[in-house]
């Protein structure tokens, strides 16, 4: 392990270059040689220095978390480690030997297995086929189906899951699909397991289950590299934390020696910022309590018994002007289904909907948009971004759709608007003309938010808007939303993180099993209360 002699801004805890490799950054003795390490890795994309002389090391038998804001270089580093992209300079060592993976397949063959943020499986194949795709056990030259089935069940059993492995993958919810992806990654001897935001689509109990598995794997000597935005989860599982900032390694720390506040400050890079975040994080109940509560509430949209057979039991729901209504519930509880009915993405087959007191029929998103309703969908990749189009085009798409095809936004106006929103939301991009697919997840999310805010909506439906977004951006976005609410925007806020829902919402509707089971005032509610409702013991 060598450190380059001249590092910019070395953090205080950094090992001096002269110290032998066996001494860790915090003075603790390293357990052994790193299984996977990079030295001086740099990567430049057009206009962006994605990685700058990054040293990174991963030890066997520990969970190492990579933290950093959007665009800090986490994904690039992982792509370098797994052979997706080749670094411009620097070396990668696997178990001490210099390696240069030309493809993810080569990395996999060497025992470096990766689980990407989005589930990369074939939804049309069976669970068993997904686990063994590309390396099916063969017998007499033919695929040995009974063996596959048996081994797939065994692989899932390691994760304490039992599924019908012959059913197609899309028969199961995303969370289960994620578990299948883990089973696939582990079904072959892995030395290094890389998890890129595996928990972003999991609920709490599933996260706990995943962590149990990770601890078990750790004990068997596998090195685990974990990327997440959830600070709580970082501390629940990590032994070691590497913080990235602006493409550079900010520092490597033992988790027990780094407080959460310090961590956030190191990610964000400004002490001032961290103050603000700490305040926001400690803000317990709904924002501005009384002041907002006093404003005469008038409903922007009212649902009366709106439902859809097989999707959502008829529910009553009001979203008041200038207020945030939170929807709390587990995955599949009807949160997204409610949002889709409100937006006309699915058609309700019962009940009536009132916008500004007048009954409306929303037969398509087009109708909803005309009534000033906007919807940031949960699945950013599939339902949000138009990957090959530029950031500018993505931002302006909804506004242009609302104006109609014959009233084109002029080239100059389009550029001004896009630049304005890129600046307002702090979207990190070298050029508004680059395809949005090249942005990091959080920046894509901001661009989608910009897309809708540009249309000046009256109701903004946000389905998991902060998933995959770093803490700083999260608070930033929520701050902006609160400011917009003060100007009369209504928001329907959906999130798996109950604490987040409570922090921003004036009222919270709780859903369970595709029906609304309660509605609580933001102030009167606490997390435990809502957990009880969701669990079904609070009625």
């Amino acid at each position, binding site marked *: 392990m060598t450190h380059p002699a001249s590092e910019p801004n070395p953090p205080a805890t950094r090992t001096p270059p002269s110290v032998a490799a066996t001494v860790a950054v915090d003075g603790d003795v390293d357990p052994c040689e790193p299984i996977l390490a990079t030295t001086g890795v740099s990567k430049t994309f057009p206009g962006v220095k994605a990685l700058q002389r990054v040293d990174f090391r991963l030890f066997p038998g520990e969970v190492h978390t990579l933290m950093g804001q959007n665009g800090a270089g986490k994904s690039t580093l992982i792509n370098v480690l797994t052979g997706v992209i080749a670094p411009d300079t620097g070396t990668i060592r696997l178990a001490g030997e210099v390696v240069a993976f030309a493809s993810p397949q080569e990395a996999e063959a060497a025992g470096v297995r990766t689980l990407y943020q989005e589930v990369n499986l074939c939804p049309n194949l069976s669970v068993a086929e997904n686990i063994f795709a590309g390396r099916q056990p063969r017998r007499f030259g033919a695929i040995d189906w009974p063996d596959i089935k048996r081994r797939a069940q065994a692989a899932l059993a390691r994760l304490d899951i039992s599924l019908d492995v012959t059913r197609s993958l899309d028969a199961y919810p995303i969370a289960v699909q994620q578990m299948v992806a883990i089973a696939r990654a582990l079904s072959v001897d892995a030395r290094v397991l890389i998890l890129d935001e595996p928990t972003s689509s999991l609920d709490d109990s599933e996260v706990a289950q995943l962590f149990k598995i990770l601890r078990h794997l750790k004990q068997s000597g596998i090195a685990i590299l974990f990327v997440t935005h959830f600070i709580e989860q970082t501390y629940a599982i990590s032994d070691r934390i590497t913080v990235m900032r602006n493409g550079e390694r900010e520092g490597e720390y033992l988790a027990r020696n780094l407080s959460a506040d310090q961590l956030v400050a190191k990610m964000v890079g400004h002490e001032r910022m961290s103050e603000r975040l700490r305040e926001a994080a400690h803000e317990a109940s709904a924002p501005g309590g009384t002041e907002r509560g006093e404003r005469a509430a008038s409903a922007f949209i009212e649902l009366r018994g709106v439902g859809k057979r097989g999707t959502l039991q008829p529910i009553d729901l009001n979203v008041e002007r200038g207020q945030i209504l939170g929807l709390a519930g587990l995955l599949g509880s009807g949160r997204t289904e409610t949002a889709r009915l409100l*937006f006309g*993405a699915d058609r309700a087959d019962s009940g009536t909907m009132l916008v500004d007191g007048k009954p409306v029929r929303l037969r*398509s*998103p*087009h109708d*909803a*948009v*005309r009534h000033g309703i906007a*919807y940031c*969908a949960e699945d950013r990749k*599939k*339902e*949000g*971004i*138009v*990957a*090959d*189009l530029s950031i500018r*085009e993505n931002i*302006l*798409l*909804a506004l*242009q*759709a*609302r*104006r*109609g*095809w*014959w*009233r*084109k*936004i002029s080239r100059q106006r389009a550029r001004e608007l896009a630049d304005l929103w890129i600046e307002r939301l702090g979207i990190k991009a070298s050029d508004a003309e680059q395809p949005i697919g090249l942005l990091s997840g959080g920046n894509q999310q901001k661009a989608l938010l910009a*897309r809708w805010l540009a249309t000046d909506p009256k109701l903004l439906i946000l389905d998991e808007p902060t998933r995959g977004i770093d803490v700083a951006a999260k608070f930033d976005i929520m701050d902006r939303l609160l400011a917009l609410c003060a100007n009369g925007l209504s928001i329907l806020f959906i999130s798996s993180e109950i604490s987040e829902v409570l922090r921003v919402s004036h009222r919270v509707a709780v859903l369970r099993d595709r029906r609304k089971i309660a509605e609580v005032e933001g102030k009167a509610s606490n997390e435990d209360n809502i957990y009880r409702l969701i669990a079904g013991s609070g009625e």
Partner: protein
Amino acid sequence: MKLSNWLARDGVERPLIWPCVTLALLCALNLWVNPHFLSLRMLDGHLFGAPIDVLNRAAPLVLVATGMTLVIATRGIDISVGAVVAIAGAAAATILATQPVPTGSLIAQALLAALIVGVLSGMWNGLLVSFVGMQPIIATLILMVAGRGIAQLLTAGQIIPIGAPGYLFVGGGYWLGVPCSVWIATIAVLATAALVEGTALGLFIRAIGVNPVATRLVGLRSKALVFAVYGFSGLTAAMAGILISSNVRSADGNNAGLLLELDAILAVTLGGTSLLGGRFSFAGTVLGALIIQTLTYTTYSIGVPPEATLVVKAAVVLAVSVIQSPAARALAMSIGMQMIKQREVAR
């Protein structure tokens, strides 16, 4: 700028460079065989010469490929256009045949009828693709097969000759020394480009091609737009049908526009429009159509025996496709770049 840098600049910046190179190579080949290839003569107030001949014969293909460009940009495909060409020609010829000496108004009716059946055919495709939700290739396959039948029913299985001078002028006449069909194709392409790029239609069509689900969720009526795009493809196919029937002075339900859909798809792809949707270029499509027609011309001019023509054509198409494939180019470029760099270093 260094040569290696210039070559390394991405094709995205200059998407039309490869179709241009291909066309230039074909022209160079012709010039080598026939030094007078590019020369034009004025005869009886009409321009004559190989370039005019190529443009004239490419006109129907340009029209069909223009409609096809938009269809392909929505990640669809329309393989019924050849059949629609036949239907449109048959419809016009049937109406013209009702009078021994067709009047002006009858000719106008015939033209209008041809265009209307074309649009209706396209709308049928659009209905199946966008509202019924069929795969575009299957949906348009139906009309590809049935359309020939409809055309034969209209012509009662016969080849109907067309003699009306006004109608023949459309595909065979000259205006300002240039064939009418060239004028029609040029105006149609320019008008389409102006309509699509001058409004937000271009953005919407590309968005639909890349991510139809997300596009619907921004409040676009994407189904209606896709429907309209197929209708438009029917319209351009009908215009091509008028030109072809006028040019050959007859309507042949069996053979008019046969395999034209494949040439059109080829022209669109040669022009750099992605079959995966999201990227299209009318200029590229026109270049693609000209490449195909020049290639046909070349096989005759350099004396390829008729029985070998199709094989030669296929070989050239393969070569062109390889040239235009970024992966193949990257390979060739990495070899070329090393050589160039070595030379630059040597200097």
